[in-house]
């Protein structure tokens, strides 16, 4: 049953998408504003992008953010993958439900509480706060997301493939690296990308756990906005939006292409099979 779109459908679509994207579109438009005043249109210009390149503070913050995101995403991926493996593979063990409940708790825990508790921990441990504490904090919460993503990949995994490897003489640890990991790799990569993005745009936990010399980009933007929104901030945000959009589009094109290729292969196989 196919029908043309009704007026109701079209209206809902327009309203829904405007609600989602109008603020972002405004932000992008005003980043090309000639005028210093954010709310007054003074003609088209790219001067704020040029001045951005000379703003060392913002560039420093961006560099810190990237380093934190990269390191924390990598560690979180290793830990999260291990956690997912235990949850899916070990069958029943004492404390399994407690463990699985605890690994997902940070997903629903208010960030303020997570940040505060981490801050208290770092103070109690008497560690100097900075790059490492932010990185550890991000690892902590990103790990749960990785565990969820990898777990969903593992649930659909045919365990007999691992059994086949062992049957052919491959010990368990080697089996993991030769067989299991390559098969769940898309899940692991997706988990890493999710962790990277989460770390990139986190403000609350970073502000709790950071120290001098380790200001992340979201923190920098937030503190500047409190002194008044400048078109420069609009420019930074536009770049961020563009980066994220490019990433998402690239990822979906890659997946789509893989799927099309796979379907074509399967059709070919059954054609001459």
């Amino acid at each position, binding site marked *: 049953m196919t029908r043309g779109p009704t007026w109701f459908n079209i209206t809902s679509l327009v309203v829904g998408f405007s609600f989602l994207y109008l603020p972002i579109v405004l932000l992008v438009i005003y980043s090309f504003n000639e005028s210093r005043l954010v709310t007054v249109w003074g003609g088209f210009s790219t001067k704020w992008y040029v001045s951005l390149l000379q703003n060392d503070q913002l560039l420093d913050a961006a560099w810190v953010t990237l380093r934190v995101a990269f390191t924390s995403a990598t560690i979180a991926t290793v830990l999260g993958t291990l956690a997912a493996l235990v949850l899916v593979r070990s069958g029943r063990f004492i404390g399994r439900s407690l463990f699985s409940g605890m690994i997902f708790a940070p997903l629903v825990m208010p960030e303020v509480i997570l940040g505060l508790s981490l801050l208290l921990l770092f103070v109690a441990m008497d560690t100097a706060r900075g790059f490492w504490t932010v990185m550890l904090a991000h690892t902590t919460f990103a790990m749960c997301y990785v565990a969820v993503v990898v777990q969903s990949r593992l649930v659909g995994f*045919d365990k*007999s*493939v691992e*059994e*086949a*490897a*062992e*049957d*052919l*003489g*491959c*010990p*368990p640890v080697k089996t993991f690296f030769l*067989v299991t990991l*390559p*098969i769940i790799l898309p899940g692991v990569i997706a988990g890493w990308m999710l962790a990277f993005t989460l770390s990139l745009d986190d403000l609350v936990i970073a502000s709790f756990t950071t120290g001098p010399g380790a200001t992340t980009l979201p923190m920098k933007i937030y503190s500047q906005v409190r002194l008044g929104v400048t078109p420069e901030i609009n420019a930074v945000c536009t770049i961020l939006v563009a980066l994220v959009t490019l990433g998402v589009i690239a990822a979906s094109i890659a997946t789509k292409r893989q799927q099309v290729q*796979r379907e074509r*292969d*399967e059709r*070919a*196989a*059954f054609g*001459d*099979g």
Partner: protein
Amino acid sequence: MAKKSIGPVRREFSPWENTDHPPFIEFRNVTKKFGDFVAVKNLSLKIYEKEFFALLGGSGCGKTTLMRMLAGFETPTSGQIFLDGQDLAGIPPYRRPSNMMFQSYALFPHMNVEKNIAFGLKQDKMPAAEIEARVAEMLRLTKLEQFAKRKPHQLSGGQRQRVALARSLAKRPKVLLLDEPLGALDRKLREETQFELMGLQEDLKMTFLIVTHDQEEAMTVADRIAVMDKGELVQVATPSEIYEAPNSKFVADFIGDINLIEAKVTEKTEAVTKLVSVVDGFAIECDQETEANVGDTVWYAIRPEKVRIAHGQTEPGVVNQIGGIVWDIAYLGDVSIIHAKVGEDEHDTIRATFTNVSRMVENPIKWDDNVVLTFDRDAGVILAR
């Protein structure tokens, strides 16, 4: 007159008849429990070198568990398993000299056909040149040469099945374990592959152990079949013995089609047992001894193809002859199945089949015809209740 034997003889191979012959695989009082569920119950079984052995049974009968214990994926709760004289207890799957072909094929999706086949050989640290030669041999054996560079998802079901077979044969295991290997193939391909498997087994002179729920498959490929039910062996024998001389109502009913007639023993001598059917009172004489006493009720089991059917009436005083009315006819092309009503109740029927040897029949059997069913004295078997 030569001694009668059951069915055609495929090859002169019967080490199981010699009690001194050492078994190649032995299950000794093996029990496997999953919680409260007993999957395998105190089972003992001997399988001989170069034998093609089938474990046959319905789902949940313990056949797959038995095979997985041999491969090392399950540990017996009690009992021992020996392979070539070696106790397998405590030996992990990756050190056992058996290889398995999985029901789902379990091919490595990220490796091409060649790499799948070479995987086991690489684990043995075999020199690269030898690996290459062995892989080429396996590709030739399974007719997969032109697919060597393809990934599993680029293959059809039948091709994947052959890759799985090639991979499990590549290491020349002492025993090849086949877990429902042909379940996913269509009928024609399955029959073809059954004969290919038999040929391979003969050529490679390996011991094959197959798990299947398909009785035709088991009867086609195996030297001996073990029929399993509820974790226990019901009968272990050659396919023809299982079919012609089942040892219980379960086996008779499970393998092929059979008429089961409830009958009372009226007279017994050393070689002949006389019976009378309980429901309709016709007389049966059978060239078989029975442990049942006179007056006991037993099952008289007779295969439909051993019942002859013709137009006519019964003659008084003749045994192994039953009168009936044709109730239903199924024409299958090669054979026809007739359901003849022999009593008052419409379910009280006996099935007879005959091969359609000629295309045209002068006086065909029709619905409601009066027919007479006859059978030989050695056509049926007496089974205890």
